[in-house]
């Protein structure tokens, strides 16, 4: 088949698919329609557990078992990155002298901006995690914001500074412990006789920082786990891209 015939065939098939999709989308209810069967029940169940953020209630309370699996997806991705990007026997890790920037080699503005932005970003991420059951956000969102704050160390300095100031061991342990905490909090529900990951802690008044039972605890666990996991993955990538190079032929470590 020549290229033009292939292109013509694709345009024909694409037009047919587009027509079918448009007809399907036109039959959907509008965005923000007043009645939605699942939405009505989810909002009622979430309010009964004194959680203002219904999305967080669905994630960590009503369907917490699904979130357990999702959290371990990121954990597995970080583990896979560590395994796949490990140093092989015919590679060595340079000292990074080629990529080391002295204090006056980094742009002043960039250094100042990252020094100022890093604590603010980590604090905003912690705020998003802590208020996950009250306002939009939650464990995953806050964890990613916190990890981007830590990576500003790389922006403001160089990769060696990032590795010195945020040692891998701390993040490895933090990620594993936080991932386990999710399951441990679920066991609290088992001990109370209500089922794994049931919301069995005291619920408090809606709108308080300490309310909604297990949802804040699970938020914190997911936030720490996601933050550490993303820092680990990006540190492995940075190390691979900047520091690891192949040994000359025939050498082995």
């Amino acid at each position, binding site marked *: 088949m020549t290229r033009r015939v292939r292109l013509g065939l694709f345009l024909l098939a694409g037009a047919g698919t587009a027509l079918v999709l448009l007809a399907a989308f036109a039959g959907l209810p509008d965005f923000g329609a007043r009645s939605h069967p699942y939405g009505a029940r989810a909002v009622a169940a979430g309010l009964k557990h004194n959680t203002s953020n219904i999305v967080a209630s669905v994630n960590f309370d009503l369907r917490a078992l699904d979130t357990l699996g999702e959290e371990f997806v990121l954990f597995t991705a970080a583990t896979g990155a560590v395994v796949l990007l490990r140093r092989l026997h015919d590679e060595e890790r340079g000292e990074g002298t080629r990529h080391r920037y002295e204090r006056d080699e980094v742009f002043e503005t960039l250094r100042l901006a990252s020094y100022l932005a890093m604590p603010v970003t980590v604090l905003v991420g912690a705020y998003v995690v802590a208020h996950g059951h009250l306002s939009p*956000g939650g464990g*995953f969102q806050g964890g*990613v914001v916190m990890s981007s704050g830590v990576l500003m160390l790389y922006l403001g300095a160089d990769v060696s500074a990032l590795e010195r100031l945020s040692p891998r061991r701390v993040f490895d342990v933090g990620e594993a412990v936080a991932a386990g905490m999710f399951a441990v909090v679920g066991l609290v529900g088992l001990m109370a006789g209500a089922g794994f990951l049931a919301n069995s802690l005291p619920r408090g008044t809606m709108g308080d920082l300490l309310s909604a039972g297990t949802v804040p605890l699970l938020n914190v666990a997911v936030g720490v786990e996601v933050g550490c996991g993303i820092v680990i993955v990006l540190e492995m*990538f940075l190390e691979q*891209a900047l520091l690891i190079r192949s040994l000359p032929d025939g050498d082995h470590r």
Partner: protein
Amino acid sequence: MTALLAASLLLVAVGGTAVVLTPDPRNQAVVLSMYGLLLTVMFVVLQAPDVAMAQLAVGTVVLPLLVILAIARSGGRQ
């Protein structure tokens, strides 16, 4: 379907096409970051702030960084 929603959906479509049509992978990473921002705006217009926050952090920061580092590691070869 308000005008704001239609405009944000159109911007997302244009952004996606722009990502695909950018030739060099290094430039594509930056356009991908911009596309992530457009997706965030669309999610906010659709009143899904949790999704928008997650998309903002992941699609604008983490994903283009991973792409650029992978390109740097592979020496720019395809």
